[in-house]
Structures are given as C-alpha cells and as structure tokens.
C-alpha cells in the first residue's frame, strides 16, 4: 500500500485529484446552497446569489454581494489552477498555497452556514442545502490532503499536529474575541451596531485620568498605586510561603498527616469571596463582631471605617486563600527532584538547612521564576472579590482598597459603558505586557534558561 502511494505521489498527475475536487466545487455553484421560506413556500438560493447579489422574497429583501464569498470562489479557482500547474512549481510552495486557500474557503463557508440566521436575518427559517455541505466537505478534504503533503515534505512536523487542539482552543477562545479591543477606541451607537460605530481615538481612556486636582491625589494614582503595591506583596509572600509550605509538606514523615495538611490548606480555595466577606464581617462588625465583643466598649474599633488595618487584612486573606495552590505547585516540583542528590549531600555531612539551600532551592528556581514572571504579567489586575466584597464596599476604605478593577466596576455600575471597560482592560494589558517584557529581558541577561520567552 505504501509503495503504491509513494509512486502515485511522485507521479505526474499528483495533484489531479485536487483539481477534480476543485472543479466539483465549482459545479456546486449550480446546486442550492441555502434555502428560505417565503409565503409558505421554500425557495433555494445559490452561492452565486451571494457573489453577485440578488433580490429575493418577492423583491422585499436584497441580498448584497458579499466580499468573502467572492474571495472564496476565486480561491477555489486558484486551487484548481495551482493543482494543475503543480509540476511546474516547487511542490512545497504549491502545497502551502493550496492549504492556505482551502482553509480560507472552508472557514468562510462554515461561518456562513453557522451564522446563516444572523446574516440573513430578514429571511425566515433559513436551512442549509446540500450544495453548501458538499463545498464544506470537499474543501476539508483538500485541506487535509495538502497538509498531509506538507507533512510528507517535512515542512510540517508531527509535533505541529500535537499543538493543534490546544492552539485551536486558544484561537477560538482568546484570539478571535481579541478584536473586541477595538471597542476601546469607538463610541458605541447601538442604532448602527458595534461594527459601524464611530472611532474616537483615546477618548475612552480619559476615565482613568480625571482632569481636576493634582495627579498624586487623583484616583488614577491611588488605584494604580494600590494595585501595584498589593500585587507586589502578594507575589512576594505567596512565593516565600508557598516554598516554605511546599518543603514542609514534602518532608513530612507521616503520610497521614501529609494528606490532612494538604487537604486543609487547599480548603480556603473552595470558599467564594462573598462568603469570605461574611466571615470577615463576623470578625469585624460593630454590633456583634467577634473582635469588638472582646474589647471594652470605649476601645471598640470601627474596622470598616478605619483604613489602616486593611492592607494587612487583605494581604492575610489573599495569602490564606492562595497558599494551597502555591504550595502544591512547589510540592510537585520538589517531588520530582532526584533523591540521590540528597543522599549524596547527607553522605557529605550536609544538614537540613544546607540541603535545602543548596539542592531544593536551586532546583526550584525555574518554577519560582516562571510563577513570578507570570504573576508580574498580571500585575495590573486584581481579584475583584477580594477588594470589593471583603471590605463590604465601604466608602471610608476606598483609599486603601480601590484598585483598577474595582474603580472600573464602580464607574460602570452607573454607565454600563462597554467602551470604557474595554479601554481600561486594554490599559491594564498593555502596561502589564510592557512590564513583563522588560522583566523578561532582564532575566534573560542573567539567567537565559529561565526567561519566559
């Protein structure tokens, strides 16, 4: 079987079948693509109608000629031509072109079929007809064939195929919606829709930088300062404590206790911040709080109106919740360290502290660096639940609990303006990216291996 395949592939008519498939697709122009209902009768539409435009539904609806469909059709022709000229060109180039074109054709038609209801929203009960299905199937076949060729030609590797499912998810879930960043630069007018709304440049970003007052008193400064400082504290503490606890868990002799502790420190992760806020309220409230009921009435502390306690409270709550995860990540790295290293160190007379400093910590360095870099990238983001719910949204504490995210939420609660929300998250992303890029470059200078990229 394999020999026959190779011979066939080397033969002159290598791409003939692709040309034939492309030809069949062209024929499909004459088969119904989609159909709709009008006056209780079902009418068919051809792909040609999408290419050239047509009046349908007795003249009440006009289907405009669509750029994508035109491109798609031209590309099908292009595929056929390339397939025919295959032997005249470098096969790698030809395969790449065909793969590319086929992919575009496939996606365009797929999108049309899936979005038929919104594209043709004036028509009723739009149904997919077999013409469209054939086009999609055949273009898929062409695509697979060309990819296979590329793999044979060692342009694509098996490893490339391994990353496909994952990258497909990222493209769908993360990259396609990224076009939404453009919303930050528009003023949305719902009468014309998002796509046609006017561009306003950086207008929406002004919400972060109000004009009045000095900069250091401005909200922009306060929220940026808070976000940054808290995150620095979080990164430092959760790393240090995570490493310590990870080592403790790894070294504990009794495996029963190990299980117990591991479960316990993970449990705070299960409580949502809303409930954590109530638990906090149980401690800090004025009427019946646990702390105030233990103090003399004249010494009573109004926690929710006294900013000075909150940096400590919030850091404590964060670490309390986070330590389970950090410790377990470090734990799983520590467990992977070769035991013979420790044996050798013991033979050399090293005590525990030395073992930790000279073996465990250096071996953990890559994990630590990675985690720190990843957290630095998100240094302008904050946990909304922590900064909004736990202080019970108390106004008196704003100066120490307001972060960029809570600021935006409070502003948006009144205006529900998605352009502003988008502008702020773009701001957070750009600054975070700049910072992590810089830090990554610095890390590269000293320790090439452990940089992120």
């Amino acid at each position, binding site marked *: 079987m394999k020999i026959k395949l190779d011979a066939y592939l080397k033969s002159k008519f290598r791409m003939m079948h692709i040309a034939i498939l492309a030809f069949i697709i062209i024929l499909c122009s004459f088969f119904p693509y989609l159909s709709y209902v009008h006056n209780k009768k079902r009418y068919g539409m051809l792909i040609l109608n999408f290419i050239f435009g047509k009046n349908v539904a007795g003249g009440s609806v006009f289907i405009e000629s669509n750029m994508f469909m035109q491109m798609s059709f031209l590309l099908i022709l292009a595929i056929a031509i390339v397939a025919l000229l295959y032997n005249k060109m470098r096969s790698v180039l030809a395969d790449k072109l065909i793969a590319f074109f086929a992919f575009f054709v496939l996606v365009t038609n797929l999108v049309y079929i899936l979005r038929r209801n919104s594209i043709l929203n004036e028509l009723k009960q739009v149904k997919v007809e077999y013409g469209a299905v054939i086009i999609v199937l055949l273009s898929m076949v062409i695509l697979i064939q060309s990819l296979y060729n590329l793999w044979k030609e060692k342009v694509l590797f098996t490893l490339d195929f391994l990353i496909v499912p994952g990258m497909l998810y990222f493209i769908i879930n993360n990259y396609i919606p990224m076009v939404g960043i453009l919303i930050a630069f528009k003023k949305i007018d719902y009468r014309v829709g998002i796509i046609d709304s006017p561009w306003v440049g950086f207008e929406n970003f002004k919400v972060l930088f109000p004009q009045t007052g000095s900069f250091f008193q401005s909200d922009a400064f306060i929220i940026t300062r808070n976000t940054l400082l808290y995150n620095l504290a979080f990164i430092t503490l959760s790393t240090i404590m995570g490493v310590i606890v990870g080592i403790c868990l790894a070294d504990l002799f009794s495996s029963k206790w190990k299980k117990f502790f591991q479960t316990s420190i993970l449990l705070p992760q299960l409580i949502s911040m809303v409930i954590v806020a109530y638990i906090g309220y149980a401690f800090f409230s004025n009427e019946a709080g646990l702390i105030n009921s233990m103090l003399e009435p004249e010494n009573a502390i109004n926690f929710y109106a006294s900013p000075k306690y909150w940096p400590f409270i919030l850091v404590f709550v964060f670490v309390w919740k986070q330590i389970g995860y950090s410790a377990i990540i470090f734990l799983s790295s520590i467990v992977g360290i070769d035991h013979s290293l420790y044996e050798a160190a013991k033979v050399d007379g090293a005590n525990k502290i030395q073992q930790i400093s000279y073996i465990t910590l250096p071996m953990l360095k*890559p994990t630590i660096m990675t985690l720190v870099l990843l957290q630095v990238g998100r240094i302008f983001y904050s946990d909304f639940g922590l900064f909004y719910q736990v202080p019970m949204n108390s106004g008196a504490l704003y100066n120490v609990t307001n972060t960029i995210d809570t600021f935006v939420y409070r502003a948006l609660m009144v205006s529900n303006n998605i352009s502003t929300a988008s502008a702020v998250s773009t701001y957070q992303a750009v600054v975070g990216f700049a910072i992590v890029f810089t830090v990554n470059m610095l890390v590269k200078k000293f320790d090439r291996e452990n940089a992120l990229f």
Partner: protein
Amino acid sequence: MSDSGIKSKSDKIYQIVIFSILVVLAICALFPFLLLVSSSVTEESVLLSKGYSFFPRKISFYAYEYLFKSNATKVLRSYGVTFFITIVGTSISLLIAPMLAWPLARKDYKRAKLVTFLVFFTMLFNGGIVPSYIMWTQLFGLKNTIWALIFPTLIMNGFYVILYKNNFAHNIHPALVEAAKIDGAGEWYIYFKIVLPLSLPIIATIGLMVGLAYWNDWVNGLYYISDTKLYSLQQLLKSIIDNISALASMGSSVDTSSVTNKMPGSGIRMAMAVIGIIPIMVLYPFFQKAFVKGIALGGVKE
C-alpha cells in the same frame, strides 16, 4: 525526601519544626470553616442580632430545610450540572493542554519560542466579555446549553500550559526522547507512553486546579444561562443571595409579601456555601491517593 526515615536527633527537630508550621497553617485555614458550619445551623434572628460565632447559639436547621425540602430538585440538579461540567471539562483540559505544552518543552522544536509567546500573550490581552459572548452565542449557539458552562474560558489557560511546559522541560530528559526515537518510537508514542506517565504529579496538580475552577465557576452561568435547569451549584447560590438582596431592597418600600414569604433568611448563604464545599471535602481524600501514587511513580529518574 522522606524515605530515608527519621534517624538522628536533628531529623527529629526538623520534623517537629515543620509539623508546627503546618499545624499553625491548618488552624488558620480551618477555623473559618467552623464559623461557616456553625452559622449555617444557627437560627436566623440570632445570627443577625448576635452575630456569627464558633458554636451555634441557637441551633436551627431552617436553612437546610429550605434547601432540601422545598428546593430539593433545584439543589440536586445543580449538583448534577456541576459534577458533569467538572468531570467533562477537566477531562478535556487534561487531554489537550499537556499535548500543547509538550512540543514547547522540546529544544528541537523549531516553533517553540513563537508558540510559547502566543500562549503567554493570551494571558495578558483579552477583548472583553462582549465579543466572546457574541462569538459563543451566535457562532456556536451555546446559549442556554450545558456546553456554555464547559467551553468558554475554563478549558485551558496560558498559566497552566506554561507550568506544564516548565515541568516537562525539567523532568523529561532529552536523552530519554533520543533513546526512544532510536528505538523507532513516533512522536505520539513518545507523548502518550513516556511523557504522560512520567508527569503524573504535575498533571494531577493542574487537574486539581482546573477541577476546582469548574466547581467554583459562576461567571459562565451568569452570562450564558437563564434556564434554571442548567444552573450550576455556584450560580444557584449566587442567584439565591442576589434575590434575597433585591427583594430586601424593594421590600421595605413596596409590597413584596406575596413573594417574600417564600424567601429564606440570611443563614441560607452559609448553608449553601457549606453544601458547595462538602462534596469536595468528601472526594478529595480519594483524589489524594492518586496524587500520592503518581508522585511515587514519577519520582524514578534516569
């Protein structure tokens, strides 16, 4: 590290030290639960007037009664939904995320740097909820289906992929891969039969994190689900709490008695939090066994 047994005195001291650290942490981690459980069985009026306490001042199971008697179907169904999405979502994640990370950990993979950057980039920039919503709803038609609780956001995260990548890079020696190739193994074989078995600790760890993320999630439900049959446990909790607040804020000025009399009190929040946690607490020890096993297996080197 603990297999050589406790021999010397310094070993004993060390064990005591780390034990004490862990005990302190465990207490810190656990006492809020005491508060939680005790307030879930306290009578509501006592809860509001005297506050929360470690031991219930006046026991009343009204919150649990409300949940399991009049809302039994809702609560049980939301358990079902949550279990389903946790299991399915975590399985999908464990299938495709390490698969993406493995080539990135290979020094001989030409596109490693580029793809790593693309993965990391997703952690920083996002287009906001509206474009995602439009895409998932109109292109994929997920609204009010169970898949809306599984696919958006939670399956994979740049953070996890990079953790996998790092772990693979340091634990899977290139020599091992070389040797396998010489023996004629293909990439798929190497991945499934060599890389995965050796990486059980990290897979277990991240699997746990993904699972917990699914268990705790209410955001997807908030945006995509309006049919109460598809409410997850957390969404049901949030819905009950929010409705209590909404009613309370309206109830003092308009007549909401026809609806309020069906509404429970505030201790309900605590009770719901407790029932959200109990399955995990019950299941975690079993998961632990697999975790420890994986560690034992994965520890063999060279």
